[in-house]
């Protein structure tokens, strides 16, 4: 039975030329797990919000939305649960227990009922340990789990989630997805999830809906998605966003059942190419050149009494290379970056930029034509009410002559593809656009060394590819880039060298192929599939290339 049904649903925002949704007819079965995906701006969020009457955007709507056979607007409050993207801004109250109770308080349930349901839900989600804590003291993953639990307190029949893991680190994201799967399997709750990180959710979905420019492109079981996309267009952009196993499969045009998980992908490769030895790839030479940034035996802690965060960190970054600093949560990655940016002073050791110690750059000289940091949250970069004003402020600080400012700004905006956004308010941009805009502001200081903190957080596969190309272009021009990231896939594709940080020190620095070949757990999905055969194949493209080479030898 269909729990949620749309019939020829179209929607247009007030004053917009193009419709945000066009003739979407979709039917969600009760108890199913459906993933909605598509590039940014495809109408995912609009569609999901229209399903939740309290959050439905204002605009011109035609077509019908039926929930359990009735118009969705007449559903009881709480029958449709909704979890948003940002873990922080969804929390209303200051205590965990109060946050859980909030929804039921709104429904006016008696205190004893609330007490019971709060207890039950808290134990189901393993919240007891932090039940009495302040919501502010939780980690991002805990916050999002709390949001999920608080929504489930209302006993919804349908759970809608709009990119719930985009702000989480990979481990927290996997935990969250596991919780979702548990809810779907054990409680039979219908789940509708919009997501751009598909590696984990794709295999567990019953159905995948792909949206493109406001239209429903397809709504199929996951295994049928790639073949369908290929039949629509052999180079459909959505193909780049699919899980690694699917991407390897489609590069081979091999036919047969499409593998979805690492396990299936591994079996797929081993069945075909077991025993085919390939000559080792040419050894990637570490980049040669002068040293741009030299971190020498740096020790750091935040308080006098607190434990050391960095313990003798040493790192030499060569001029014109792109270096990715990888590591788990709390390994000290962000701290290391802040120290390289001169925001914190090391307790011991020193940092040299172009052979000069950081602290000898005085009066802001460090941040002009030298070094720039793009923070994790691009919103911290903007202080003005239009993007143009923000960029102008930076040019003024750089003492660019007023006559040249407009030209310089145009040039930068064109390069980053944000020229059409200059008049917009920075907060009205999408996540990917905000990041580009922030990068534009940072790049206006004309740095030789660019530091990035989690640059791929919250942006989709297309924006990620764009970013990786942009960084390549920058390094080709001689800029040095250091990025701190959780994203092994991004590091494998974009980096010249990868460094692994653990417990405050660097354990290894190598070109990505050697780096990931030596790792067992901390490596890309493509490498985990292929490492039994070809250890140094790291990205999907490299695995596919190996497969092709193997075909020739067979």
């Amino acid at each position, binding site marked *: 039975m269909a729990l949620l049904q749309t019939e020829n649903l179209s929607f247009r925002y007030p004053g917009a030329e193009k419709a945000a949704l066009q003739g979407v007819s979709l039917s969600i079965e009760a108890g199913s797990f459906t993933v909605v995906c598509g590039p940014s701006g495809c109408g995912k969020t609009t569609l999901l919000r229209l399903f939740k009457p309290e959050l439905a955007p204002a605009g011109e709507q035609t077509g019908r939305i039926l929930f359990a056979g009735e118009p969705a607007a007449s559903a009881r*409050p*709480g029958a449709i649960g909704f979890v948003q993207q940002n873990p922080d801004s969804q929390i209303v109250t200051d205590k965990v227990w109060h946050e859980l109770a909030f929804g039921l308080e709104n429904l006016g349930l008696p205190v004893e009922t609330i007490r019971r349901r709060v207890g039950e839900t808290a134990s189901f989600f393993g919240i007891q340990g932090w039940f009495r804590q302040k919501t502010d003291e939780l980690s991002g993953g805990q916050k999002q789990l709390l*949001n999920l639990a608080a929504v489930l307190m209302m006993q919804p029949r349908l759970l809608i989630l709009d990119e719930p893991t985009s702000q989480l680190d990979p481990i927290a994201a996997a935990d969250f997805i596991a919780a979702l799967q548990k809810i779907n399997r054990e409680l039979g709750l219908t789940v509708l999830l919009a997501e751009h990180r598909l590696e984990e959710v794709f295999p567990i979905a019953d159905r995948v809906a792909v949206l493109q420019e406001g239209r429903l492109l397809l709504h199929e079981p996951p295994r049928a998605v790639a073949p369908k996309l290929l039949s629509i267009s052999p180079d459909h952009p959505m193909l780049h966003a699919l899980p690694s196993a699917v991407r390897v499969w489609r590069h081979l045009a091999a036919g047969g059942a499409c593998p979805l998980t690492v396990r299936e992908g591994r079996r797929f490769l081993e069945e075909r190419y077991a025993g085919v030895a390939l000559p080792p790839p040419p050894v990637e030479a570490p980049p040669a050149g002068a040293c741009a940034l030299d971190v020498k035996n740096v020790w750091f802690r935040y308080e006098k009494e607190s434990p050391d965060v960095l313990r003798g960190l040493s790192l030499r970054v060569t001029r014109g290379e792109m270096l990715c600093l990888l590591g788990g949560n709390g390994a000290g990655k962000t701290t290391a970056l802040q120290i390289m940016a*001169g925001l914190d002073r090391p307790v011991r050791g020193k940092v040299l930029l172009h052979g000069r110690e950081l602290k000898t750059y005085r009066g802001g000289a460090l941040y002009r034509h030298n070094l720039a940091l793009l923070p994790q949250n691009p919103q911290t*970069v903007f202080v003005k009410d239009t993007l143009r004003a923000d960029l102008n402020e930076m040019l003024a600080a750089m003492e660019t002559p007023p006559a040249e400012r407009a030209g310089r700004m145009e040039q930068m905006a064109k390069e980053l593809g944000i020229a059409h956004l200059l008049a917009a308010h920075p907060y009205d941009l999408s996540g990917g656009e905000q990041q580009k805009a922030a990068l534009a502001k940072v790049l206006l200081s004309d740095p030789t060394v660019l530091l990035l903190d989690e640059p791929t957080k919250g942006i989709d596969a297309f924006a990620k590819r764009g970013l990786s190309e942009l960084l390549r272009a920058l390094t080709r021009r001689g800029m040095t880039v250091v990025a701190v990231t959780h994203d092994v896939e991004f590091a494998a594709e974009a980096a010249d060298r990868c460094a692994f940080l653990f417990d405050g020190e660097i354990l290894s620095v190598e070109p990505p192929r050697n780096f990931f070949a030596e790792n067992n757990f901390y490596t890309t999905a493509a490498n985990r599939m292929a490492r039994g055969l070809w250890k140094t194949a790291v990205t999907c493209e490299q695995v596919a290339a190996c497969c092709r080479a193997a075909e020739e030898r067979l």
Partner: protein
Amino acid sequence: MKAFAGLHPAVTMTYFVLLLTVCMFLPHPVLQGQALVCGALTCALLCRRGAARDVGFYLPLFLLVAVTNPLFSHNGVTPLFFLNGNPVTLEALLYGLSLAAMVVGVLLWCKAYNEVMTSDKFLYLFGAVTPKLSLVLSMALRFLPAYRRQARRVSRAQKAMGLYAGSSMVCRVKNRLRVLAAMVTWSLENAMETAASMKARGYGSGKRRTHFSLFRFRPADGAFFAALLLLAAAPLAAAAAGALNFTYYPRLSQLQTTPAAWVAYAAYGLFLLLPAMWEAKEALVWRCCKRKI
């Protein structure tokens, strides 16, 4: 002070309200002295650290209030000496001492209050009277630490772009104001998402909200409540009956030594020691329990 802080918020609140009422209503030297001493004792029990700093703050304050009164007030009939042709009287000096005891006593008890009545207890009580306002307060309290963190992030991001330079006073003020202005946009944009999350969970669905909390009124709370009401009633009743009248001007009146007055002093003393005694009781129970195991 785990035991006293573990009482039901309504009980704790009643205790402090009654205490402050007596402190401010009955300017009687004995009661004031008791409140001052017991306040210091309770504070010492509650917040063991920082005692030295507290003495450094309260002692000068006590002296300041006590000494300045006779300089401004020339009532009283017993001049001690003359200053600029104005008499400094014994009555005014003693009245100053009593005022100082009151002010410092109230401050000490306020310190104890701040230690025990944490924001969640306050919100619970406040919410029983004004649920909406209490919700607003709860949200504000939740936002504040997040805002502080974000403000720090913004200022560091600006600094790393070279836009937060300069260490002069003007620069510092300007930088902080810039951060604050950026915070206004950020916070309100996020607040709208929070509003969406409230609506998504049925806020404003027209039903009357319930007021949920983890606090339970247990028998021990009842016992403490009864004790505090009884003990506080004694001085109030005595005062109403005129057994605690005391005047400073024009001349000092006699301190009462009637049975009623003695009962009032004793009851008030016990009342002030209730938190400390409750703590001692819990400590004893704990020790007995441990011995049995």
